């Protein structure tokens, strides 16, 4: 016997009131995107402090913004996955809700926006730290299926909201 006490209601309100629309997606898409993001962020760190490095940060900021505010389908790495990778793979065992990966894109956008502003103002150390955090999250997501929303969402609510 399974009873949900408002869990599903909570899900619906959280997605309908936010920028997210509820879509089911192939779970391999976000992990593929995480792998590309890992490579892009590693390049950003290696070239940090150069104009090229700042351009890479700007690119990834746009990618995260598209994923977070428009949708995973509008995200370039998601498009790559659907166009070139997915047709070559067997159908996924099951589909997943797109809200958790979109939340991760939003957190990634926060770090990269901070990194971009810092890089443009010459704050290489701040920019490096922000990109490093995003790199850790992207790598853990791609390699270990790490769920960022699971780790930070409730802690964030506990810190920012009263009962």
């Amino acid at each position, binding site marked *: *016997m*399974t*009873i*949900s*006490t*408002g*869990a*599903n*209601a*909570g*899900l619906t309100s*959280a*997605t309908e009131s936010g920028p997210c629309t509820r879509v089911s997606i192939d*779970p391999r898409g976000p992990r593929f995107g995480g792998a590309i993001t890992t490579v892009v962020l*590693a390049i950003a*760190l*290696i*070239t*940090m402090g150069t104009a090229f490095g700042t351009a890479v940060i700007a690119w990834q900021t746009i990618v995260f913004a598209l994923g977070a505010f428009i949708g995973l389908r509008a995200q370039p790495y998601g498009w790559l996955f659907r166009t070139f990778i997915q047709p070559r793979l067997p159908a996924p065992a099951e589909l*997943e*809700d797109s*809200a*958790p*990966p979109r*939340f*991760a894109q939003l957190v990634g956008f926060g770090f990269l926006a901070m990194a971009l502003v810092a890089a443009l103002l010459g704050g290489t150390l701040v920019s*490096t730290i922000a990109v*490093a955090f995003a*790199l*850790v999250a992207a*790598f*853990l997501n791609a*390699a*270990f*299926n*790490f*769920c*960022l*929303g*699971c*780790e930070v*969402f*409730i*802690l964030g*609510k*506990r810190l920012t*909201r*009263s*009962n």
Partner: protein
Amino acid sequence: MTGLYLVLAILILATAFGLWYRANNGRMRTTDMHTAGADEHGGETLDAQTIGVALGTRATLVQFSSAFCQPCRATRQILGEVSGMVEGVAHVDIDAEANLELVRALDIRRTPTVLVLDSAGRIRKRASGLPRKADVIAALGDLD
């Protein structure tokens, strides 16, 4: 060159963390909370009013979920299967965001978190992250 070494260091540390994360995620632990409500089993007690459903006659699986949690759905499925399979086991899925008072009282930090209550409502086991079905069944066996 500094950037390259930094990237390598980050990837090595993140891999170490990832291996630890994978080994510990969803593991059932026997609760040992030395709190005011603790008894000889060491756990706190939840009642039907707090969790919103009647306690199972044998055990109750209390799941805390959130909106941005990927493995919560799979957890719901596993716990639903176990409660359907084992007589006297109830399963309740609680939205952590909507029940912050309870979440704070039980110090729940991640979703999914699963509490295994015995017939008296004592919290005897706790797992955070997607639990394995065999571990959930084993946890029920340990209650007796």
